[in-house]
Each structure stands twice: as structure tokens, then as C-alpha cells.
């Protein structure tokens, strides 16, 4: 549901609602959501309840907050802090890379914009895991980059199994999720609005700050959410590119489940969920402001 909301931040309000002539259509179309509601109940709501149940109980079915409190364990706290740091860094990098790209895409007169967009999406056609393993092969000591550097008699690059490699993996994997929402918002901005701003004497910088940026905010917000949340919870990227040496909170949770300690694992997941909810609450506040001041 989160994602649906995020994706729809900029969806135009349905015409049907404005003119009441299609009431019948609405009433009927409600049934169309039935499959999704079934899906949501079975695969989102029930699992969530199960996680809350496990997170709040012990093996012998007593209610406890120990599982949640285990986040205060210095190791877990460290893993959480590191995860927050790395996902924040990769979100910022993604934003810095994606925003200018989206602006360029909007401005370019090329007819093949969709082609460029496709190139951005293209890597996503390949499995996420395979791409990450490919990065491992590229960055390894005997990997592609180092073989090449050695050929040129240059010093080798030792980035594998460091936080840097994990950030690289996150940026690479999640960049499209930043580019696409921003691009989608930007191309929907009416040229006339920008022309009006220029007409009324705003220079390029002013137009950007007062018109384009506020109008694109919803896309930026969705982009940030869609990069930040998976980065924060990932354990695969840190496992593969961090050599299991760098332990993020996602790895801690995965380990707990692996060794059969579902209760602590669920408790920590709940803590992580709280962090995600907080970040989304902050973002959605900005989102509303953006929409309120930017839309007519």
C-alpha cells in the first residue's frame, strides 16, 4: 500500500468524481479492487500481524518487550546507525545523480526520450541478485577493474568488502527508482507555467527555485522513499559486496531468522518499521506542502 501511495502522489484526480454522471461506474468499479484487497489481506496484513505477534512474545508465549528492546544492544545499535548512515548517503548520491538527469531529459528536444528512459530501466530487466554478484566480480581483487589497472601498471583498487562498495551497490540498484518518479513529475509540468514565470520577469534560477522545484517535490519525495527504504533494510547487498564483514541492521535481522530466533528477528523488524514510518511521515508532510503550494 505504501508504494501505491507513493506512486500516486501526482496522479490527476479522476474526472469521474467531478461530474457525478458516472456514479454507477464508480460503484461497480469498487469490486475491481477485490483481488487486490484479498492479496493485501493475505500477504501484507496477516504477515504483519504475525510479525507483531512474534515480536511481542517469547518462546513460551509470554508477552514481552525484550525483543524490541534488543535494539539497544550496542551491536544492534551500531548496525542500525551504520545502516542509516549508508542508506542516507546513497539516497543523497542518487538524488544528486537523478535530478539533473531528469531535468536534462525534460529539456532535451530529442524525440527519443523514451529510449533514454528505457536505458535507465534496462538493467532492471536483469535479476537484482545477479547484478550485485556482477559488481562483486567487477570490484574483486582479481576482478575486472583490478585486472585492467594491473595491465596499466597502476595501483590496485581495494574497494570490495568496504562500506564504499555497499553504497555503490545501493546506488546502482536503486537509482532508477529515483530517476523515474522525478522524471515523471517533471514532464508533466505545463510549459505555460514556466513561460508565465519567465514572462513575469523571473530569471532562470528563480523559475527553477519557485516553479520547477516545488512542482517536482512530490516526485523527489517518492524517489527518496523508494531509495531510502530498500537501502535501509537490505542485507543482500551488504552480504555480497561487504563480504559479511560489515553488519547492517538488515543482516542482524536475517541472522536472527536464520538461527531460528524468530522472536528477536521480528522485534528488530518492528523497530526498523518504526524508522521507516517516521521517515515516511516526515516526507509526506513535505509532500503535502509541496502539493498545497504548487498545485492549482
Amino acid at each position, binding site marked *: 500500500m505504501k508504494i501505491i501511495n507513493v506512486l500516486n502522489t501526482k496522479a490527476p484526480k479522476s474526472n469521474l468524481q467531478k461530474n457525478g454522471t458516472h456514479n454507477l461506474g464508480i460503484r461497480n468499479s469498487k469490486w475491481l479492487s477485490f483481488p487486490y484487497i484479498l492479496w493485501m489481506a493475505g500477504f501484507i496484513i*496477516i504477515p504483519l500481524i*504475525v510479525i507483531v*505477534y512474534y515480536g511481542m512474545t517469547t518462546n513460551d508465549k509470554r508477552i514481552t518487550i525484550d525483543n524490541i528492546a534488543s535494539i539497544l544492544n*550496542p*551491536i544492534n545499535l*551500531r*548496525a542500525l546507525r551504520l545502516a542509516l548512515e549508508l542508506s542516507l548517503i546513497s539516497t543523497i548520491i542518487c538524488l544528486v545523480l537523478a535530478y539533473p538527469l531528469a531535468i536534462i531529459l525534460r529539456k532535451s528536444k530529442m524525440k527519443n526520450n523514451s529510449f533514454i528512459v528505457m536505458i535507465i530501466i534496462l538493467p532492471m530487466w536483469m535479476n537484482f541478485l545477479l547484478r550485485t554478484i556482477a559488481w562483486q566480480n567487477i570490484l*574483486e*581483487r*582479481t576482478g575486472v577493474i583490478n585486472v585492467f589497472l594491473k595491465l596499466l601498471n597502476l595501483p590496485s583498487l581495494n574497494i570490495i*568488502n568496504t562500506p564504499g562498495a555497499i553504497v555503490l551497490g545501493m546506488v546502482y540498484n536503486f537509482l532508477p527508482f529515483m530517476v523515474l518518479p522525478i522524471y515523471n513529475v517533471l514532464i508533466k509540468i505545463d510549459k505555460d507555467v514556466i513561460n508565465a514565470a519567465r514572462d513575469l520577469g523571473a530569471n532562470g534560477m528563480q523559475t527553477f527555485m519557485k516553479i520547477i522545484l516545488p512542482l517536482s517535490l512530490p516526485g523527489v519525495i517518492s524517489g527518496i522513499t523508494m531509495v531510502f527504504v530498500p537501502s535501509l533494510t537490505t542485507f543482500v547487498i551488504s552480504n555480497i559486496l561487504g*563480504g*559479511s*564483514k560489515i*553488519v547492517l541492521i538488515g543482516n*542482524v535481522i536475517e*541472522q536472527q531468522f*536464520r*538461527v*531460528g*530466533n*524468530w522472536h528477536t528477528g521480528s522485534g528488530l523488524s518492528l523497530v526498523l518499521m518504526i524508522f521507516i514510518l517516521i521517515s515516511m511521515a516526515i516526507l509526506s508532510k513535505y509532500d503535502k506542502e509541496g502539493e498545497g503550494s504548487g498545485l492549482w
Partner: protein
Amino acid sequence: MKKLLAISALLIVMVLLAGCSDNGGEKVYVYNWGEYLDYETLELFKERTGITVVYEEFVQNEDMYPKVESEAVIYDVVCPSDYMIQKMIENDLLYAPNFDNIPNIKYIDETYLKSSEEFDPGNKYSVPYCWGTLGILYNKTMVDEPIDSWGVLFDEKYSGEILMIDSVRDAFAIALKYLGYDLNSTNEAELEEAKALLKKQYPLVQAYVVDEVRDKMIGGEAAIGVIYSGEAIYTSRENPDLEYVVPKEGSNVWIDGWVIPKNSKNKENAEAFINFMCDPEIALMNFNYITYSTPNSGAWNLIEDEAVKNSPVAFPPQDILDRCTAYRYLGEEVEANYIQKWYEAKGE
């Protein structure tokens, strides 16, 4: 709650399988390690007995245990390791098979049945399938001294050249053995000492790995890695510079065995499957495919390649085995203590 979960999971599985599971006939549900037998043998089993094998795989013991325990899925034959078999026996999850239906157990070498008694007293519940040791795999071109001790894993000289195993019991077994203690230790002071050693090792380690060690060592990513003997035959075949050694301080010897969960619905089929797996020719097929040492003396006799037959890696001499100990299940509390200490060691 667990029941409810199991039921809902079962319902989903039933709905999913409803379309395709209607071809009748005898079945046996097998749950085994990943790539842990020659898949052709499953076809042969069907040919010989008419029983269809429904085959599933797990990555580690700990993945398998909750599934069997919660009865989320009902299996007829499972292949856990020694300490896990003990845990399952203690928690009353296993069925004692009728060995009249498993006559081929006569091909299993006495030595291994005796070793199995460590975790399965009286050999009542399990039939050994594969076994091996834990040791060091090193690249001859990247080290300039004879490797025969766990000490190299803690030597600063090899900083960045070490691939440590990412598995709690194995990691602690190495540290405990190096310090001269029992690898089934429950002594808090000894475990603390082992933890301190592993913590000191952290900056020297290039990466913590399990299955990846194979490809990384073959590719020359590191000089020293910790590996199970079964993988060593394969890696040395792929890269002749690699050599396997069981360190002089001693190590772990493990046995994976076939067991039948108590809730199995096809116990006779399960016995037939286990009997089939003990058939020397089938055991040989599996050995050739997975290269993990077989306890099946019938199969060993059939090995044609003398080099393999007498390989000290696949079939180590008795004096090496004398230095090795099997893991015992140490109880839930101690297990949790091990895990906590492992986190602390790796969490810097």
C-alpha cells in the same frame, strides 16, 4: 498461532498444488541439502520402485529445523547434520525406522555407525549419508611456509588474505581448537577467550563466507580459506595450486545422515528411499557427483580411480580422524550464547 500459521500455509500450498498433484501413485517427500545428490538417482528410484520423489533443498540445518518442527510442510526423509539430528531426537521429532526395510545398511562402514552413536546412541534414528572434516584450503603460490595449524588464520602476516567461515559453530570450533580446548565447550571462560581471539581476527579477514569460498579460492582472491573437505576435491581439480589440510590442533568431523520425521505420512516409502541411497552403486553415483566422502564401503570398493580411492582428503587416514571431534547439540541456552558471542566478535 503456530498451528494457525501452519494450517494457512498448508492451505495455500494445497490450493497451489491442487492442479498438479492429482496423478496418484506412491510418493516420498525428500528434503536435502542443496546439490547434495546426483539428480539422476531420483529417476532411477522411480524406475525401480515406482515411487515418485518430491525433492526440496535447504541451505543450512537451521533453515530446515523450523520447517520440520512447525509441521508447515511434511517431509518423509530429511538429511540433517550430526548435532541437528541430536537436537531433533531430543525434541522428539524423529521416527525410529524399521531397519528390516533398510537391509543395505550393511554397506555402511562400522566406523561411521560408531561415530554416529555420538549423536544417535544405538543408531536408532539415522543412517549416515556423507561425512567430512573442516580444514584449511590454501594456495601454494601465495604462502611460503608449510601450513599445518589454525594459527595462520590469526597471523597478521596474512592480513586481507584470509577467508573465514561464516558459521557460528565452525568459527568457534576453530578458535577453541587453536586454544587447545574442546570444540563442544560450554565453559564460559573458554568461550570468552575464543571470542576474544575471533575478535582479534576480524581486521585480518578479507570476507566471511560459506559457499563463496569455493569460487574465491579458485579465482585466487585469497591465500587461505576455511572449507569443508567435500569441496576441497572439487577446488583442487579446478585450481591445482590449492591444497587442503586438517590442522594439527584437530578439527571437526561431521556426518550428515538420513532421518525420518515423526509426522511423515509415507514411512515405508521413506525407508525404501534410504535403503536405495545405501545401495553401493547409487552411493557411488552420488559420490562422483558431489565429491563428499561416502561412509558406504560398498561404494568405496567400486571407485575405479585409485587416486580418489586413496585420497587423504576424501578418505583421511585414521591418525587425522583421531584428532577430529563431532559437534554435539549443546542445548538452546548454550547455542544462544555461542550466537551472541559470534555477533560480538564480528560486530567489532
